[in-house]
């Protein structure tokens, strides 16, 4: 069965978007799916950009073992202060995992999705992974089950995946060429042997592609994750995108490599560069011609809990859930009410017409703007934003591009924004770092900006704007774009010397 591939190049000027969700043109992308598939993803935060503002997910870390080595991964994964894939605080047995899922689902009714994503490879832990799924599908039938895998043993578990009603699978596919693969995967464990280099990569790629085809043949939704590694697979990912689309994957999520020396990974220690936000965006745009691209991924931990971009794992540690008394039958009734309310809201938003780029002169250049947003509105103080949402305004309209993480430099207090809670030296460097994160943006929209960051932002060529507090993000971005257009700054300079 050939799954239709959705596009998020859907005409932005037409209706159907949600101006208050902060999700750009993506809602249009989902509307192209047949109803039975759309129904599967409309409340899945990792698959649907609009859903991720309202529905939450959780991962349970029941799968510690792995059968391959990736150069961006270090198997010493017990750090609690980091947020990235493969990192967890406590491993769970399947029984502990069930207890935790039921506790979270009762406490956070908008949690609709349970994934097993590591910290190793879930399908290299078939016993622990499938026992968890089996118990959960029996006890919490209102929770969607997902699994993510490197794909090495996927073909042998496709039937088991289908049996447990897991209808969302993510495969990490970084390459389709073994020579590229050998630079990413030093070895795999296959048929009782460790196999190094190109031969190992060849087997892995073969199994991934076979597994992908088997899943889509059974109508199971497949998302493909790829890690963008500059100089290793950047150009190659365009081919990957084409091939996985042909095989029926419905969404491609290209994520930036994380390679810090202190993580102790091969790439970190060997100083492999991470991609810049611009490189990531260019590659996502280049692949978008072929299929729907996911741009709202937050690269979360293998034990994350809550909405994307937040982590409430600390509220559900083993000692805490031990004393929670969960009546799941009652919780399911409450959950249903909450889910229906959110879906109704999402339905209503689909009817809202997106802000049009009317009155913008033909040929105006696009402008990137950073937004300190929350729940779809310009809501946050510059110094309190944990991340900025990056939007592009152009004559075609407003579209969501990505998020960029910041580090908090403002601890609150009255004079917030001026950073007087932290010592001067630290304030200085963190503020500068946050401004560097906004590179390429010409405007930053927030509810409020302090004096010190205001001056620094202006000096960096980024116009701070606090005029649109609490307005829907896309309306605010379009309004600012129109203001800039009115000054004539968006048109190519007439002076040929300046153009060159």
């Amino acid at each position, binding site marked *: 069965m050939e799954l239709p591939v959705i596009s998020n190049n859907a005409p932005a000027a037409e209706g159907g978007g949600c101006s208050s969700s902060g999700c750009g043109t993506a809602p249009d992308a989902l509307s192209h799916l047949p109803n039975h598939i759309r129904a599967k993803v409309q409340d899945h935060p990792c698959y649907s950009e609009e859903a991720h503002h309202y529905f939450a997910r959780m991962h349970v870390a029941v799968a*510690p*073992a792995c*059968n391959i*080595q990736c150069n961006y991964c270090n198997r010493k994964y017990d750090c609690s202060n980091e947020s990235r894939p493969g990192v967890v605080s406590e491993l769970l047995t399947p029984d502990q995992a069930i207890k935790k899922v039921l506790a979270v689902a009762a406490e956070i009714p908008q949690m609709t999705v349970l994934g097993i994503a590591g910290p*190793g490879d879930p399908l290299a*832990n078939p016993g622990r992974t499938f026992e968890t799924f089996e118990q959960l599908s029996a006890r919490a039938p209102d929770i969607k089950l997902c699994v993510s895998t490197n794909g090495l043993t996927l073909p042998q578990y496709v039937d088991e995946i289908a049996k447990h009603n897991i209808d969302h699978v993510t495969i990490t596919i970084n390459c389709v060429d073994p020579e590229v693969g050998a630079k990413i995967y*030093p070895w795999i464990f296959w048929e*009782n042997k460790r196999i190094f280099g190109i031969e190992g990569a060849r087997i892995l790629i073969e199994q991934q592609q076979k597994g992908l085809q088997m899943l889509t043949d059974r109508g199971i939704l497949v998302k493909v994750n790829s890690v963008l590694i500059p100089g290793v697979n950047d150009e190659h990912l365009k081919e990957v995108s084409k091939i996985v689309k042909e095989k029926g994957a419905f969404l491609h999520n290209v994520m930036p490599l994380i390679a810090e020396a202190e993580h102790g990974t091969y790439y970190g*220690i*060997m100083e492999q560069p991470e991609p810049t936000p611009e490189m990531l965006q260019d590659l996502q745009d280049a692949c978008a011609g072929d299929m729907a691209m996911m741009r709202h991924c937050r690269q979360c931990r293998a034990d994350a809990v809550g909405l994307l971009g937040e982590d409430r794992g600390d509220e559900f540690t083993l000692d805490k859930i031990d004393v929670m008394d969960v009546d799941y039958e009652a919780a399911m009734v409450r959950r249903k009410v909450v889910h229906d309310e959110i879906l109704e809201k999402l339905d209503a938003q689909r009817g809202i017409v997106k802000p049009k780029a009317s009155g913008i002169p033909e040929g105006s250049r696009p402008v990137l703007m950073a937004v300190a947003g929350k729940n779809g509105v310009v809501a946050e103080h510059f110094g309190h934003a944990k991340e900025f949402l990056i939007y592009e305004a152009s004559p075609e309209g407003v579209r969501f591009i990505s998020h960029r993480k910041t580090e908090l430099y403002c601890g609150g207090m009255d004079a917030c924004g001026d950073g007087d809670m932290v010592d001067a030296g630290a304030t200085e460097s963190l503020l500068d770092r946050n401004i560097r994160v906004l590179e390429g943006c010409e405007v930053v929209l927030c509810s409020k900006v302090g004096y010190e960051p205001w001056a620094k932002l202006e000096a960096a060529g980024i116009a701070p704007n606090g005029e649109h507090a609490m307005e829907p993000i896309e309306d605010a971005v379009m309004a600012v774009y129109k203001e800039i257009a009115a000054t004539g700054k968006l048109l190519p300079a007439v002076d040929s010397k300046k153009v060159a």
Partner: protein
Amino acid sequence: MALQITESCVNCWACVDVCPNDAIYEDKPHFLIDDGKCTECLGDHADPQCAAICPIEMAIVNELGEFLNPPGSLTGIPIEKLKEFGLWKDAA
């Protein structure tokens, strides 16, 4: 003859699942090999399975204390770099 797990072990369970003799058991601070059960996989597999899947260099040693996966052998990180980052050891 039996293999042993060192303090480098990160308790990832990979070896437990592939051991043909059920010789590996959970313990604190890390997994251990029952030397009464371990055969180094002789007769079952060409390579000892725990050492063939273990992702951590220096975590499995033989009776002579030699690393089955010496520093740099799994990650390909050069020895100078391992030394620079304090990740290099001569022997167990």
